[in-house]
């Protein structure tokens, strides 16, 4: 009880410090008033009210001391001191607005940038997945052993028959489901539109722990057999956009890729599937049975929720055994000795691509360095100012101020300043988060070969309470970090000698301050060198990537895809495309038209085996790999892919005549190192080119189909008219701006196929830029940090040199008076700055050589120790420091000796 009463009392004092202090005051005055009245009354008029008041006060004791003693007993004196310190600090800030502005700005940039990057790290790496018990969710993948030069794969997706074998053998998971991303054309009730969706197994939502907000989930009986009922779940967004949030949407029929689906449920707001952008979900079992039952149609990701009594470790240990069961059920038809397996990982561990994770950690370290530099800079400012306040502090120490009290006061100043910086940093962070979202490397670069869960991406970054708490914590921590050393140094009792000194000549104490300022400036330069080295390397790598010749000319080219009309069979497709291309060619400004199945730099293009009919056959399954691309004859010339030998395709290469292929230089080098490939007979495992023999008729330049930074691999081209294929990408070359062609392209297509949506309509230059978006993202941010670091370090150097000059004005005056040439003084000051730069650069380079190794995975064709980059950043640094030194140096050289000597 007593504990509770006491606590309640303390809480009341704490929460209402000001009110409580007033109450104490009231109470004592009440006491005095009663005592005065009492005395007046007792004296029966012989005592004046004033005298009675005095007597009462004497009887009461020293009011001020008693009040203080009561307040300190109540714990209020602590607040008094803080409030007093804070008021004093604010007064000091008002007196030196420039100092305050520079310090607050520096801290705002440092803390704000950290908060922005923290938001990204928090959203992408730290925060749990937005599903119930996310730690119980796992992703199961197939594994493929290494083949020749191809490394082993640990993340192979599933086919339905293999999944069924796995599901029937396992005891680990309570729910498990396949899913894959899909793009479909949605029509019926409104215009046809192209939307992203997911094809999901019956237990997909139950695995994730998501329930429809309207209607129902897929039913277990709908999940039994292929060719199951066509039911449809839609996202909240689609429901509101297309169906006006009408609850009567349940039971309605929507047309998806020409097939009727019945809407049975609406999913909760915010849920967009694991892909992060699905608008509708179709059942896996509505997928065409012949494709679903194909054991080698590896298209689906498998997610699963652990049974309550199974641990993550048990699942990881048992899944490989299940993988072996699946492998026995479906051995590889061509490679009977190859053993596939299965592996389980926590879904959370696969949430972002490993490269994204690494680059975020690199950015986090970089931004931490920026904050360190900012702290060093502000600490330097404080040291400079403390030197200016030496006399004030010495006087206060001399008249008996406790050192602890002075340190506390100086710390209050620095923490208060940091908190001002922290408040201003919210603006910086807000802007930074917007920038991160805008630069989002994932949105442009979401391809099959980018791992990770789409639901976790850069657009989910927000400046939320967690980020703000982080900023506040950082502000207080930085306030202590940059404030403590200057505070301790400034109040060093041995500095009391400052009282005796005249103000012009610094002695030991001030010199010591100068030394720590020099150390701080050197530290700043060293850290800036590390950051500059990192961003310099990234910039150089980006420059090299931009300079890579992808093997084709991307300018003035528009690309697009569209759905094929259902009435065309495979053999009538060339006629259809001919018609469409002729209409496009008739558009004004169009100079060329072509088709290709998979555009350059797309990644995930088709590949197969190649065999050589004029050489002894090799064992089945050991044939070398080759990429295969279908093109119309016009494609090579239109994309400016150079012809090295032989000829391009022409319209004569059509079905029914001798089969021909083109190969690229990489293929020619690898397969015919010392021979002429022209006329060689080959078989290619696709497009009906395996049983028949095709002849190489030409060698063309290498085109990078995968990405800018992966070298070309052996590729073969097949003429579209010789082996027609399903949906193709249309490419148009124009005389002028390619994107200006979009409206007329859309119109032309509307004439051929009313209502069919065009999709993937982008200029080829945009596609090239998108493949570099990731490299550009990290590079821009790192470069930004590098620039900020350089600016701060330059400011820091300027501060130190400039303060040194102002402290030495007298000495400089004397030197001049004694005949020192002004140029010599200028050189002396510049030498000082350069000494700082040299020391900082030397330390920085040593650290940078170690630190930049973590960048190796991000660099294209640049060594982490690239001498050229290091040379350039050192030159930049030298120039910046020189500029920072020249201003105070010129001031030093223009000192007027007569004035400085008289001032003393």
């Amino acid at each position: 009880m007593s504990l509770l009463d006491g606590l309640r009392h303390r809480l009341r004092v704490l929460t209402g410090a000001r009110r409580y202090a007033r109450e104490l005051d009231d109470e004592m005055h009440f006491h005095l008033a009663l005592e005065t009245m009492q005395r007046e009354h007792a004296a029966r008029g012989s005592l004046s009210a004033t005298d009675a008041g005095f007597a009462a006060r004497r009887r009461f004791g020293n009011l001020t001391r008693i009040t203080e003693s009561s307040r300190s007993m109540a714990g209020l004196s602590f607040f008094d001191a803080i409030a007093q310190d804070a008021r004093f600090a604010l007064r000091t800030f008002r007196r030196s607005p420039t100092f305050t502005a520079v310090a607050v700005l520096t801290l705002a940039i440092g803390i704000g940038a950290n908060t922005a990057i923290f938001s990204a790290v928090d959203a992408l790496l730290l925060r749990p997945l937005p599903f119930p018990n996310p730690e119980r969710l796992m992703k199961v993948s197939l594994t493929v052993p290494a083949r020749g030069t191809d490394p082993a794969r640990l993340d192979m997706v599933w086919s339905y028959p293999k999944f069924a074998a796995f599901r029937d053998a396992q005891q680990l998971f309570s729910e498990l489901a396949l899913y894959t991303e899909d793009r479909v054309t949605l029509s019926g009730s409104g215009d046809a539109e192209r939307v992203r969706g997911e094809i999901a197994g019956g237990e997909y939502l139950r695995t994730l722990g998501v329930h429809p907000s309207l209607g129902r989930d897929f039913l277990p009986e709908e999940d039994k057999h292929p060719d199951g009922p066509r039911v449809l779940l839609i996202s909240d967004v689609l429901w509101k956009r297309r169906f006006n949030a009408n609850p009567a949407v349940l039971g309605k029929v929507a047309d998806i890729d020409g097939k009727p689906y019945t809407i049975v449920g609406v999913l909760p707001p915010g849920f967009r599937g694991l892909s992060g952008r699905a608008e509708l979900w179709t059942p896996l079992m509505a997928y065409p049975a012949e494709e679903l039952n194909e054991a080698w149609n590896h298209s689906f990701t498998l997610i699963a929720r652990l049974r309550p009594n199974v641990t993550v470790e048990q699942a990881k240990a048992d899944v490989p055994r299940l993988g072996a069961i699946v492998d026995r059920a479906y051995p590889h038809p061509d490679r009977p000795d190859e053993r596939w397996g299965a592996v389980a990982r926590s879904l959370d561990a696969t949430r972002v691509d490993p490269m994204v994770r690494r680059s975020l950690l690199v950015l986090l370290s970089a931004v931490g360095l920026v904050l360190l530099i900012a702290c060093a800079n502000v600490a330097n400012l404080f040291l400079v100012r403390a030197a200016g306040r030496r006399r004030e502090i010495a006087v206060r120490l001399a008249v008996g101020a406790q050192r602890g009290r002075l340190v506390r006061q100086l710390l209050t100043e620095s923490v208060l300043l940091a908190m001002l910086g922290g408040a201003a940093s919210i603006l910086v962070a807000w802007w930074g988060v917007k920038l991160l979202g805008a630069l989002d490397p994932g949105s442009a670069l979401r391809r099959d070969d980018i791992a990770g869960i789409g639901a976790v991406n850069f657009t989910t970054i927000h400046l939320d309470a967690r980020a703000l708490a982080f900023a506040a914590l950082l502000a207080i921590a930085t306030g202590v970090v940059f404030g403590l050393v200057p505070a301790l140094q400034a109040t060093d009792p041995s500095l009391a000698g400052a009282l005796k000194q005249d103000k012009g000549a610094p002695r030991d104490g001030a010199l010591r301050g100068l030394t720590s300022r020099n150390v701080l400036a050197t530290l700043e330069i060293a850290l800036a060198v590390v950051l500059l080295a990192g961003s310099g390397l990234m910039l150089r790598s980006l420059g090299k990537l931009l300079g890579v010749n992808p093997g084709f000319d991307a300018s003035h080219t528009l690309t697009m895809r569209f759905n094929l009309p259902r009435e065309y069979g495979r053999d009538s497709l060339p006629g259809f495309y001919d018609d469409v291309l002729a209409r496009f060619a008739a558009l004004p400004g169009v100079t060329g038209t072509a088709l290709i199945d998979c555009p350059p730099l797309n990644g995930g293009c088709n590949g197969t085996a190649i065999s050589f009919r004029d050489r002894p056959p090799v064992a089945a399954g050991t044939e070398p790999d080759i990429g295969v691309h279908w093109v119309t004859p016009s494609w090579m010339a239109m994309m400016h892919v150079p012809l090295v030998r032989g000829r391009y395709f022409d319209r004569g290469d059509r079905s029914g005549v001798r089969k021909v292929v083109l190969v690229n230089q990489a293929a020619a080098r690898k397969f015919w190192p010392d021979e002429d490939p022209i006329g060689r007979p080959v078989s290619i495992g696709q497009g009906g080119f395996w049983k028949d023999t095709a002849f190489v008729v030409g060698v063309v330049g290498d085109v990078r189909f995968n990405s800018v930074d992966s070298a070309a691999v052996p590729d073969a081209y097949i003429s579209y008219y010789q082996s027609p294929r399903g949906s193709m990408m249309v490419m148009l070359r124009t005389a002028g701006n390619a994107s200006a062609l979009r409206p007329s392209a859309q119109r032309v297509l509307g004439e051929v196929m009313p209502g069919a949506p065009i999709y993937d309509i982008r200029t080829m230059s945009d596609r090239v830029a998108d493949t570099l978006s990731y490299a550009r993202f990290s590079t821009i941010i790192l470069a930004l940090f590098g620039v900020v670091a350089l600016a701060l370090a330059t400011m820091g150097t300027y501060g130190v040199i400039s303060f040194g000059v102002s402290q030495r004005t007298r000495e400089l005056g004397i030197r001049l008076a004694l005949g020192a040439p002004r140029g010599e003084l200028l050189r002396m000051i510049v030498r000082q700055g350069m000494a700082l730069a040299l020391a900082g650069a030397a330390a920085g380079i040593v650290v940078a050589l170690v630190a930049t190794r973590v960048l190796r995975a991000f660099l294209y064709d640049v060594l982490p120790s690239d001498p050229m980059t290091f040379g350039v950043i050192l030159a930049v640094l030298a120039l910046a420091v020189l500029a920072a030194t020249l201003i105070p140096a010129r001031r030093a050289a223009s000192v007027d000796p007569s004035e400085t000597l008289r001032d003393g």
Partner: protein
Amino acid sequence: MTRSESSSKSELLKGTLDMLILQTLTLQSLHGYAIAQHIERLSDDVLSVEQGSLYPALERLQKKGLVTSKWGESPTGRKARYYTITASGRKHLGKEISSFDRVLVAIHRVMRQA
């Protein structure tokens, strides 16, 4: 914060003052001035100290949870803070008095033998 030369005296008085306040409050809830008056009257001004030193003592007792306070109206119509002894305050007082009695008896015995 307390001056060092008076500390031994105040240490001695602290315990006694606390005991007197608690004893006073066993009868009824009182405001600070009334507590001071009551102590002075009962002790014939022998134990009188600076009246003001009452307030830090009251603060200390509240912190220990031996006394609670509440604002109320005094008979003259002014707002005043009224102090009330808590259950643990009474228990504490009982212990203090018995140990005080033992000391007094001991002192008495010693003085008589001398």
